[in-house]
């Protein structure tokens, strides 16, 4: 882990998160996430079902990628600092895809004596297509808060 604490005074609009890569998604990882999260929609793990439903193979549930993206976010803004996380699912992630999670601060502001950042976050596949687009709001600690 070993992440640095992000302080409100140190961030600027336009700052980017250290990207996080999850390489070569496997069907096994999809199954692990299905078991962990309780999403047993067969379209994600049952190849015949997925094919009969018109797909060429199973595809990952959007929430697994949202989980990867949340890992990037908490490594960046710190544990317990997230206040809002909203994602829209765009392109699906398929077995073999590599997911890269990124973020960029769009706003820095203070409200009711608390310091916040708003950031755009997204997860891309290996073709730079966006699988997920979203925003976060995080409350950041202040260096002056002692």
């Amino acid at each position: 882990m070993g992440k640095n604490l992000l302080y409100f005074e140190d961030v600027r609009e336009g700052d980017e998160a250290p990207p996080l890569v999850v390489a070569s998604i496997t069907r096994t990882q999809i199954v692990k996430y299905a078991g962990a999260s309780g999403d047993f929609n067969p379209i994600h793990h049952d190849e015949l079902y997925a094919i009969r439903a018109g797909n060429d193979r199973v595809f990952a549930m959007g929430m697994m990628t949202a989980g990867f993206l949340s890992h990037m976010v908490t490594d960046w803004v710190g544990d317990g600092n997230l206040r809002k996380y909203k994602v829209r699912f765009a392109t699906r992630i398929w077995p073999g895809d590599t997911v890269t999670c990124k973020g960029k601060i769009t706003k820095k502001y203070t409200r009711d004596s608390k310091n916040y950042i708003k950031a755009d976050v997204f997860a891309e596949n290996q073709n730079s297509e966006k699988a997920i687009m979203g925003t976060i709001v995080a409350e950041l600690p202040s260096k002056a808060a002692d």
Partner: protein
Amino acid sequence: MPIQDLIGKEIPPFEMPIERGKIKEFAEAISDDNPLYRDPTYAKESLFGGVLAPPTFTATKAFWRTGGTNAEIAGLDNRFLLHGEEEYEYFQPIIAGDVLTCKGKITEAYEKAGKRGGTMTFVVFEFTLYNQRGEKVLISRSTAIQTGGVVKD
């Protein structure tokens, strides 16, 4: 049945105990090696006082709710179902040992013509979760979309 009739439909309230084994399993599934999710000794000594649930962990309420999945409650077809959006608001950390009470309802339901023809059905499920101290810990809003036919990106 017009889709709008679903608006206001409640999901039976349920309890959700937060368990450190499940948190560890979930962290593994999202490839997050944060020791706050996996190491109870480390987590106990942190400001959280215990193993912390990751931000999307409340997806596991699937195991505790009754009355069917979102799709089943709304009469949506898994074969042609897309997850459109998911939104979270966080108020308090969720820690292993907590027992959450979850209340859910359908807040929006509508149809739209699809870009590629056919009808798309949108249903939004909102859940509010409280901990054992009565504090609101989280609100989640999940938008499910049923496409007119084969799912396309």
